[in-house]
């Protein structure tokens, strides 16, 4: 369980985070979305005790990261500032982490196998591709078999097969009742796996909730009709919010196409088109609406 409450953070005069509050409950994959520079990484760094919050608390299983007795066994993290000593092999990098965290050496072999790096494990990490480095960082996060996974842009550098592998990992992890929080600026990536969404922009949480509800609040039905006046009267009577889109096209928010279809049939209005917008389109709309509004206040 991740609980961030009222966290603010200033870098000099720049507000990085302002009163940020959100949760990532166990058994769910929480997607942490925001444009570049929105404060995602800062929030994750505060959760990991790498940066200090100006105000507020960032707790994992009810404790600050620094107060966790064996943090590696509770939290596995991948964040962008992680690097590798170029002359050290992947296996030795993991052995170092395992030694300091009192994790057995056999576990090192296990995670190498799990991230499919065994063949490259005894080569210097300086020669790794971006995708291999990302896998090594993930292996390091998984060493302690943690209950919480905290991943900053984990899909960066992964090829399509790697992405599919990562999606399976996150879904399985949450399926075992563990907590997953991962940040991304790639919407399709989030949409595929996240059941919860937190959207952050300019250091503020602009939306948080269950993915389906969030998309649902943006559920839109597109209709075309020759009788637009009739449709608008119907919309008013039914309490729909509508948006005119061109001469004969109307977008109706917050309802399903079934509801619209039945009401239109009762009112005897002829339609030339009735469709609902696809979900990826809706997350993108939601995201752009929320983040653009902040940009031009």
């Amino acid at each position: 369980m991740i609980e961030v409450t009222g966290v603010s953070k200033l870098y000099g005069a720049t507000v990085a985070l302002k009163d940020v509050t959100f949760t990532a409950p166990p058994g769910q994959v929480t997607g942490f979305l925001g444009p570049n520079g929105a404060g995602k990484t800062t929030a994750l760094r505060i959760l990991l005790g790498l940066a200090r919050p100006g105000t507020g608390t960032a707790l994992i299983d009810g404790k600050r990261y620094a107060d966790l007795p064996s943090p590696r066994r509770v939290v596995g993290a991948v964040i962008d500032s992680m690097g590798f000593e170029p002359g050290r092999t992947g296996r030795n990098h993991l052995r170092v982490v395992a030694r300091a965290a009192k994790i057995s050496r056999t576990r090192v072999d296990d995670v190498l196998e799990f991230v499919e790096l065994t063949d490259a494990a005894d080569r210097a990490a300086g020669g790794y591709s971006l995708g291999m480095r990302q896998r090594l960082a993930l292996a390091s996060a998984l060493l302690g078999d943690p209950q919480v996974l905290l991943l900053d842009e984990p899909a960066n550098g992964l090829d399509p097969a790697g992405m599919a592998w990562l999606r399976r990992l996150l879904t399985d992890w949450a399926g075992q009742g563990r907590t997953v929080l991962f940040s991304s600026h790639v919407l399709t990536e989030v949409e595929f796996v996240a059941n919860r969404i937190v959207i952050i922009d300019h250091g503020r949480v602009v939306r948080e909730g269950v993915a389906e509800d969030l998309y649902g609040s943006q559920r839109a039905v597109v209709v075309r009709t020759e009788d637009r006046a009739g449709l608008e009267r119907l919309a008013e009577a039914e309490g729909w919010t509508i948006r005119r889109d061109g001469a004969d096209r109307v977008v109706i928010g917050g309802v399903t196409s079934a509801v619209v279809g039945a009401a239109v049939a009762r009112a005897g209005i002829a339609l030339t088109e009735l469709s609902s917008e696809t979900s990826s389109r809706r997350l993108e709309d939601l995201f752009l609406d929320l983040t653009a509004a902040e940009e031009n206040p």
Partner: protein
Amino acid sequence: MIDLLAAEVLKLRTTRTIGLLLLAMIGITGLAVTGAVVLAANANLDLESERGVRTVLHVSASGALFVLVLGAMISAGEFRHGTATDTFLTTPRRWRVVAAKLVTAAGAGVVFGAVAAATALAVAAHVYAIKGFVFPLSSSEGWQILAGAIVYAASLGALGAATGSLVRNQVGVIVGWLVWLLLAENIVAGLAPDVGRWLPGAAGRGLVLDPNGDFLSQPVAAVVLAAYAVTIAAAAIVIERRRDA
């Protein structure tokens, strides 16, 4: 803390640089001792006298600069390569990290210093023979100097690690210390001779019984150098508590 130290030692053992630093130190030590013997012989100094042994062996500390580099790598190097993040995630109480690195660097300094001392002794004995002298193995000064060289290497390792924790910039730490030890300290010592003998480089010269000047005694010099390292490490810990990683 044992696990943390073991992890730091493992980090050191699994880098390629440490072997290169050790080789470089052996080379420099051998060269410095050879040069010192030849110069002293040319100056008609009695190489078997106390003065001769001190003149020749005090240069066995010159390789300690490589331990300073190693110390800076142990601490600041983690910020250069981004491994500090993993280290702080494993050990969020950062004073433990700073302390473990200080101890590891001092320990590595003892090992490096012992290798330098052995090199100095072997090379000195050899070049003495070439020049027609016998190295006085019974000279207590000789052994004191070599012990001092080991302590100096340990001190410079600790100083490098402590400064690296404070500044987090490996190149900056190394360049800063080289400029201080090779250049700035002499100027300061010239301006304020009373202060001069308490400075780190001069304390080091006291440790190896440098015959060219009036330096602190070995025990005092060792305490002074340790105090510098611990003070800088303490400053690093205080700052680390507030600093973002």
